[in-house]
């Protein structure tokens, strides 16, 4: 019943705002499982796809996902090719200079180092090592700042390409989001392991949005608040990130 009233209210709100008919485009990378990926059926899938659709349903918006390369995902948002980024993007001060973020839909998550098992990699004392990152990520910025002086930083356009190079022995270690690496390590059957201490960078993952879109931002934020309150967000996190959460429930 409550849902019905909500839906009715949403329809009413829709009727009054003419431009609400406009499709909201959400950009994602499609190569960052389990956040966003292309499934066997050839469709975009993942935590952010389900969450994005839930947000749009709650906010009464018509949404459409588009995929865009990670390295140009912010510029193309600013250029107006889409209205929202949901691509496992961490909220950082640096990014806040150019774009805005909604509230986070994944809490601050440690970044981790991985290496092939038995290589004895020690991230505390990296010297002369080849460190792989995905270009334009917070980990890339971290590595550039803290590790570049006596190591080689190799940046790739997708995280999967970096994993391929690690597995192929062309990298000594990779630093990336814990939530991206955990399923990989678990599924590798012991071939890939975590090394060293976790690093806390970033303020959680949120949806990127242009600074002048205050109206849309409010809508998305409200929808996220509602979805967090009714447990949808935690449910989706539990579904896609094994053993994580609940983060937003009481």
């Amino acid at each position, binding site marked *: 019943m409550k849902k019905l009233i909500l839906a009715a209210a949403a329809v009413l709100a829709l009727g009054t705002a003419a431009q609400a008919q406009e499709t909201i485009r959400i950009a994602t990378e499609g190569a960052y499982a389990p956040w966003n990926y292309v499934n066997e059926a050839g469709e975009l899938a993942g935590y952010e796809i389900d969450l994005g659709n839930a947000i749009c349903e709650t906010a009464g918006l018509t949404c459409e996902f588009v995929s865009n390369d990670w390295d140009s995902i912010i510029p193309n948002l600013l250029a107006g*090719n889409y209205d929202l980024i949901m691509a496992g993007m961490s909220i950082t001060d640096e990014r806040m200079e150019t774009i805005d973020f909604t509230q986070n839909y994944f809490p601050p998550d440690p970044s981790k180092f991985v290496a092939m098992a038995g290589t004895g990699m020690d991230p505390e004392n990296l010297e002369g090592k080849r460190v792989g990152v995905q270009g334009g990520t917070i980990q890339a910025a971290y590595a550039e700042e803290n590790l570049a002086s006596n190591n080689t930083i190799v940046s790739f356009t997708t995280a999967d390409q970096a994993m*391929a190079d690690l597995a192929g022995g062309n990298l000594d270690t990779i630093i990336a989001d814990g939530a991206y690496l955990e399923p990989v390590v678990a599924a590798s059957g012991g071939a890939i392991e975590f090394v060293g201490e976790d690093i806390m960078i970033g303020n959680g993952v949120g949806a990127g949005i242009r600074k002048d879109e205050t109206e849309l931002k409010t809508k998305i934020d409200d929808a996220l608040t509602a979805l967090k309150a009714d447990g949808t967000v935690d449910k989706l996190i539990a579904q896609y990130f094994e053993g994580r959460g609940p983060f937003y429930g009481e």
Partner: protein
Amino acid sequence: MSEDLAFWLSYLTNGKHLTWYASFQFTIFAAIAGGTLAVIFGLLGAALKNSRFLPLRLVGSFYSSIVRGVPDVLFFLFFPLAFEQAVEWFMATQICTPEAIAAQSAAWPPCREANWFLGTPEYLVLASVSLGLVYGAFATNVIHGAMRSVPRGQIEAARAYGMSASQVLWRIQIRQMWVYALPGLSNVWMLIVKATSLLSLLQIADIVLWADRLGAPNFLPTVGLVHDDWRWRYYLVLFLFYILVTLLSEKVFGALMARMGRGILSEART
């Protein structure tokens, strides 16, 4: 054994692979549209270069030499961006109010209303025009040279018949120049075909992007078949695909040349 076969057959026909196969349409569209536009721009460029009016001649020469003087990929990236910005700038002069411009915080476009959404179809068209412009510059030279290879006697005879300048151009020069232009145009076509591999740089989910995505190692059973780095196999398929297209193109152009060459003195066919 047959189980294996069935497994691979179903793997290679899953939705992700079907999307890959379907994405060949972008490549083929870009090649055909780009090729057609290149011939059109080439004819235009050659007409400009042949013009009796000096500024037009300069425009023609400038176009063909500057575009060829920079890498194709640079122009290929630059043109869609520049065109988008030009359109947005024009829209801005028409619809932006001063308040809207003041309210705009991003560097571009001037105001929100002047934004032009670019999706895959738009990018594909822009990419094709881009290819057409770049390789039109090459075609300009080919066609310009071919027009001059048309025997003078033919043109003089046409004039003597009382044909107007445009009649001479269309009925004699352009009609006859194809024989001389075809070898060069076939070369330009091969270049265009190879340049279609760059589509992914314009956010088009083309065959190269899908080859990367399909071949990238996958660790998660929920995502699909778990496998390690298979990218080179997928690239090998593309490598062979392009060689096959080259082979076919050569055959087609060879047949065309033989056909076009009928009734023309054999020395023209070198």
